[in-house]
């Protein structure tokens, strides 16, 4: 059945996309269809999109481009021993990827599905309906992965749309690290809309290091959903090193007791970049601990958004939830909208949140200059110290090195 009437911008946008051939649960698909039909892109009147406009996305000239990359670009290598899984424009490039099947304790499938219920959000719905590929990574129980699995997402060409879906299942007592990174090769005006659905099972430990480093006029939306079970530990580090327009939607459902959740974020922006981090930690069970630290350095005319919600439900007693967002504005034209939100329905909890925004400490700049540092070095030192506070908490030193050298290259900072 073809649609003849295109009432909304979203309908027009969808008319240029190809419905997915990837198998997905029919109920999810029905939900996605029902959600999208006749709907408009959210506007800034929508609380969830208050500071991030979708106009540019709705106006994208979409093309389906043939794959062009012959090998993994040097700039996309982060960890020397990682098992690499490569996507180009959201399509799994088996030919460029390592043979994950050979990895003991890991089940890999490129015929992904979703174990989650429908999420009423436009980018989830679009991903379900139009996913370009979907994979499942299953870390079997008791498996301890020595080296990380690295998902490399590359955009190429003009107006490509990538909608990969990634399911990660960290089975009981497993320990693993996944790196997800974005890059671009000769690309412009591309959209990446990733869904990452994560199940961290009992006593499992999982770290996801997300490195966003697209150096082009591309748009990316990351949608992560994480379920955590009893005694599990999950850490998500979001390092936004570049990218003209980036939106991260993170949701963590803490369903079991004695769970640790760590969300770290660092974003460094310049020119007219826009970076929006929305996070939600939903404490549904007692005796858990969550830690959230996001720090940003904004220069030029760039804009940042931080919205961090922490829910502590009625039965989730004895929760320790800490959240902090700090920003340094290096120019008068840079702006940040920071909104930490705590909603607590339990009475025996320890929660704190805070948000700071300011310039570099001029007294510190002066102090360093009286020791012989140039003004530039002094400022660089202070900025790297500020953002280094986040980087030093990232355990994978290869990820840290990569981030540091990307920032050095772009801004001349030294760490």
């Amino acid at each position: 059945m073809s649609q003849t009437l295109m009432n909304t911008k979203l309908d027009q946008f969808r008319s240029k996309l190809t419905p997915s051939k990837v198998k997905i649960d029919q109920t999810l698909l029905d939900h996605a269809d029902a959600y999208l039909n006749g709907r408009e892109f959210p506007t800034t009147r929508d609380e969830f999109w208050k500071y991030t406009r979708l106009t540019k996305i709705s106006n994208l000239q979409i093309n389906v481009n043939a794959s062009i990359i012959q090998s993994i670009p040097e700039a996309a290598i982060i960890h020397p021993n990682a098992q690499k899984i490569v996507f180009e424009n959201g399509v799994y490039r088996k030919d460029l990827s390592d043979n994950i099947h050979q990895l003991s304790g890991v089940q890999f499938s490129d015929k992904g599905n979703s174990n989650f219920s429908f999420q009423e959000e436009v980018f989830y719905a679009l991903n379900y309906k139009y996913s370009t590929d979907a994979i499942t990574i299953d870390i079997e129980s008791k498996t301890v992965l020595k080296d990380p699995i690295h998902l490399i997402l590359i955009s190429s060409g003009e107006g490509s749309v990538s909608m990969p879906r990634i399911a990660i299942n960290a089975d009981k007592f497993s320990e693993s690290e996944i790196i997800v990174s974005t890059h671009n090769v000769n690309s412009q005006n591309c959209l990446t809309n990733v869904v990452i659905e994560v199940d961290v099972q009992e006593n499992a430990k999982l770290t996801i290091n997300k490195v966003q480093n697209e150096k082009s006029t591309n748009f990316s939306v990351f949608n992560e959903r994480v379920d955590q079970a009893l005694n599990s530990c999950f850490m998500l580090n979001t390092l936004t090193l570049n990218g003209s327009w980036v939106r991260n939607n993170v949701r963590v459902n803490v369903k079991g007791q004695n769970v640790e959740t760590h969300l770290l974020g660092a974003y460094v922006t310049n020119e007219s970049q826009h970076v929006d981090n929305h996070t939600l930690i939903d404490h549904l069970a007692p005796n858990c601990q969550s830690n959230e630290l996001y720090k940003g350095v904004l220069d030029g005319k760039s804009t940042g958004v931080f919205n961090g919600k922490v829910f502590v439900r009625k039965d989730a007693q004895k929760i320790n939830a800490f959240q902090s967002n700090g920003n340094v504005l290096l120019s008068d034209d840079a702006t940040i909208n920071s909104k930490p939100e705590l909603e607590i329905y339990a009475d025996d909890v320890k929660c704190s949140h805070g948000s700071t925004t300011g310039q570099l400490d001029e007294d510190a700049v002066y102090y360093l200059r009286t020791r012989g540092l140039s003004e530039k070095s002094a400022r660089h030192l202070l900025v790297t110290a500020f953002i280094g506070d986040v980087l030093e908490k990232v355990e994978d030193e290869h990820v840290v090195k990569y981030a540091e050298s990307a920032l050095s290259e772009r801004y001349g900072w030294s760490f």
Partner: protein
Amino acid sequence: MKTLINIKDLHASINGKEILKGLNLEVKPGEIHAIMGPNGAGKSTLASILAGREEYEITEGSVDFDGKDLLELATEDRAREGLFLAFQYPVEIPGVSNVNFLRTALNEIREYNGQEQISAKDFMALVREKSALVELDSKLASRSVNEGFSGGEKKRNEIFQMAMLQPKLAILDETDSGLDIDALRIVANGVNKLKTPENGAIVITHYQRLLDYIVPDFVHVLYDGKIVKSGPKELALELEEKGYDWIKDELEKAH
């Protein structure tokens, strides 16, 4: 004989308020000058202006520093030319390690003077030597600049930095205040050991006490933005005994 620093008729104001009102001071190589004076006299203002704090407006006067027009130099270039200020209130800089920034500082100073970068090995040896000199715990040397340091540790850290940078002229702004007698001795000892026939120091202090340990060649009284009295080291004792009112009375009589 050449001078290290020659301050002539210096007038400076901040927010339209004149703080320095015609100050003269000359320091020659090998000399230690003490500046004493009541609170609010302008001692820290003088130190800040010499170090290059930009908030002050210099309305008159000149400062020659080893043949260069000091007031024309950027803050960092003053340091690179060999001027050092030990702050009355050292700044805390979270996340910036002491030794890290000192390595950068040292190398930028060397580059400015056309010298080679210091090797990592030599640098660490220098850190060990100089932190021992001021009895600064080597852990403190590598911690964030002054963060969580006690008052005494901050002051010792200032002297440690001075020792690392080996300036031609050191200005110590009330480095003694808030120090117990042991810390005072350590700081003074550091300063004395760094003294050479080529370099000099301006020691700003409130108390005569410090001058038992750092023996000055000259003592000056800074009062209401001017040096109103200068004399040998004995002047410090006289000030300690009679207080500053004596100076005030003397000045009023002279009018």
